């Protein structure tokens, strides 16, 4: 029998039909929707006179557009409110489960899926959001789709996809002090560039990966798209199984045993072939920080911005355009640069472990006077847990306040916008121009580095304070 990768095994089990010289018709087990990329898809269904084919396999929550304070009041922004109401109306009409603002199941779509046990190994999972790659942490094929494809899934529970190439990224060794999975991800992207993964689906492997917690794995897989890859995945193991066990939608009774047996079979065969392979040593990875306007422009926090002398043509002009936007210069040190805002949250780093790490760091310390700190839990469940563990008290004593769940300043669709020209250290996923508000300047980092910055007000190596 031909040796198969983890990806092949799941993909092949979901191909309904292969179109002659074309894409495959791929069956989708789990579909998540939110308010921004779904309304036009529902409109399309209506125009064609179609119903949702399998409403039980779609789960909805509004996250991109929601306020993170006063959620119990009506949403002030009229357009945002309309979009959120439209999602609810569409779900009601088609019998789709909807986790509304303020409800127990509410949160960022990629946080609530795993929390509820909806995300499981071996599944195909899609959502009209590029960070759907998050769910790959469970050994699922999970990727972001466009609105036309959202409509396809609603109409048929299938999409048409060409099979991507396969890449394996192996990270072996032990992570150093203060180095997190966010740093692994930013390091990988800095090495293979933001287009390095394009056309591929990544499998992460190696001892540095298997030693990660489930939440840390989600952070790593979440950022797969920032290397251009459609998704990233990690073979399920004991960590995965223990995480899922007992969650609301986890298999129960006899089904649990059967599911675990299947999940344990989900790994790449020893002699399986990958189109592209990379190997990295965990010891080479430092706490990372970005200095430019794409996630590939990252360096160790103790390093200096590259000189860019070897760049030519549009490579050079793009590099310089990026630094001009940041108002930084080639060769400058990152450490010590002034920061105005710190954002902890998003589908990348909005889980309970991220808040624990941040809280542990700021405990007994005070927020730097002129830094604004936005702490935005990824879900209602995360928020509840923060309070249950008393982390909110630690934040309060440090002079920081907890907000309510949502995507928030990651993409600044709501009021959480970094003002023009200001610098933000953000635990989110994109440092594109204007991503956190028109003219905002973003530096991506881990929750630990963000915590160090929150108490010093400047770019800081968290290891110096640990």
């Amino acid at each position, binding site marked *: 029998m031909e040796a198969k990768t983890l990806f092949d095994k799941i993909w092949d089990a979901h191909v309904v039909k292969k179109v002659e010289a074309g894409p495959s018709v791929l069956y989708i087990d789990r579909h998540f929707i939110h308010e921004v990329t779904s309304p036009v898809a529902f409109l399309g269904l209506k125009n064609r006179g*179609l119903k949702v084919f399998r409403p039980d396999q779609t789960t909805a929550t509004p996250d991109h557009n929601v306020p993170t304070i006063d959620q119990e009041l009506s949403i002030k922004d009229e357009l945002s409110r*309309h979009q959120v109401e439209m999602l609810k109306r569409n779900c009601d009409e088609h019998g789709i489960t909807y986790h509304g603002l303020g409800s127990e199941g509410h949160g960022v779509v990629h946080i609530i899926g795993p929390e509820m046990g909806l995300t499981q190994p071996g599944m195909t999972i899609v959502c009209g959001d590029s960070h759907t790659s998050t769910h790959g942490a469970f050994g699922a094929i999970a990727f972001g789709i*466009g609105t*036309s494809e959202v*409509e396809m899934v609603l109409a048929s529970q299938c999409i048409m996809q060409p099979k991507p190439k396969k890449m394996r990224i192996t990270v072996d060794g032990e992570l150093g002090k203060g180095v997190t999975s966010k740093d692994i991800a930013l390091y990988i992207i800095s090495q293979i560039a933001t287009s390095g993964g394009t056309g591929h689906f990544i499998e992460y492997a190696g001892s540095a990966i298997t030693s990660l917690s489930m939440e840390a794995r989600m952070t790593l897989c979440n950022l797969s798209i920032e290397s251009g890859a459609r998704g990233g995945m990690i073979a399920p193991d004991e960590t995965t199984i223990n995480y899922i066990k007992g969650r609301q939608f986890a298999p129960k009774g006899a089904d649990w045993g059967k599911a675990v047996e299947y999940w344990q079979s989900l790994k790449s065969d020893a002699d399986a072939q990958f189109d592209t392979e990379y190997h990295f040593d965990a010891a080479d990875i430092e706490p990372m920080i970005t200095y430019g306007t794409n996630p590939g422009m990252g360096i160790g926090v103790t390093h200096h911005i590259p000189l860019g002398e070897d760049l030519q043509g549009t*490579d050079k002009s793009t590099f310089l355009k990026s630094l001009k936007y940041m108002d930084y210069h080639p060769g400058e040190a990152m450490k010590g640069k002034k920061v105005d805002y710190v954002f902890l949250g998003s589908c990348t780093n909005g889980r309970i472990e991220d808040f624990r790490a941040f809280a542990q760091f700021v405990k007994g310390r005070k927020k730097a006077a002129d830094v604004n700190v936005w702490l935005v839990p990824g879900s209602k469940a995360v928020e509840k847990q923060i309070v249950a563990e008393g982390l909110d008290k630690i934040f309060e004593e440090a002079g920081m306040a907890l907000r309510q769940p949502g995507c928030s300043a990651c993409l600044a669709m709501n009021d959480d916008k970094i003002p023009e020209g200001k610098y933000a250290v953000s635990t989110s996923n994109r440092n594109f121009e204007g991503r956190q508000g028109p003219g905002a300047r973003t530096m991506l980092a881990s929750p630990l580095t963000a915590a160090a910055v929150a108490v010093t007000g400047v770019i800081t190596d968290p290891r110096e304070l640990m």
Partner: protein
Amino acid sequence: MAYDKFKTLTSRAVPLPVENVDTDQIIPARFLKAVERKGFGDNLFRDWRYNKANQPIEDFPLNDDRYEGKILVGGKNFGSGSSREHAIWAIYDYGFRVVVSSFFADIFKGNALNNGLLPVIVSPAFLEKIFQAIENDPSTQFEVDLENQKFTLLATGESEEFEINPYKKHCLQNGLDDIDFLVGMKEEIEAFEK
């Protein structure tokens, strides 16, 4: 979504010689609040196109009188980042029918093909040639021949073939989309579920 059938196109082109143009630049998130697919072209490249006072930034190619046409030429890794299909809707609504680059992000490319916007992938050297040709003469014309999968600089006759999935090519030529195809497979999908 219904779109125009694509056969051949002869047009001038608008150059955007920047790499890693992400979909947040193509259409910033604050313009994604609509619930219908209308009017996105007005906000295409909003923050590169207009200043804070909403005045056009003169040297941005879309505001530069020298450039016009239905072909947008971008640097490598065009369309990276967010999966927002609004980026395609904005480009299409503005009037472009073809985007040329040496490299497209996956989701962007898939979204384009689902909306009748043809992504043409050329070699890095040929892309450089296209930028150069526009710089030398902004009124220079290009031909996009989908049937023969050929992109031609009409002034010199230089051309390059481009790849496209045969199924997607058929869809573009006939203005078809995947949803009709999938809905027509209902019985096969139901059988697969068992």
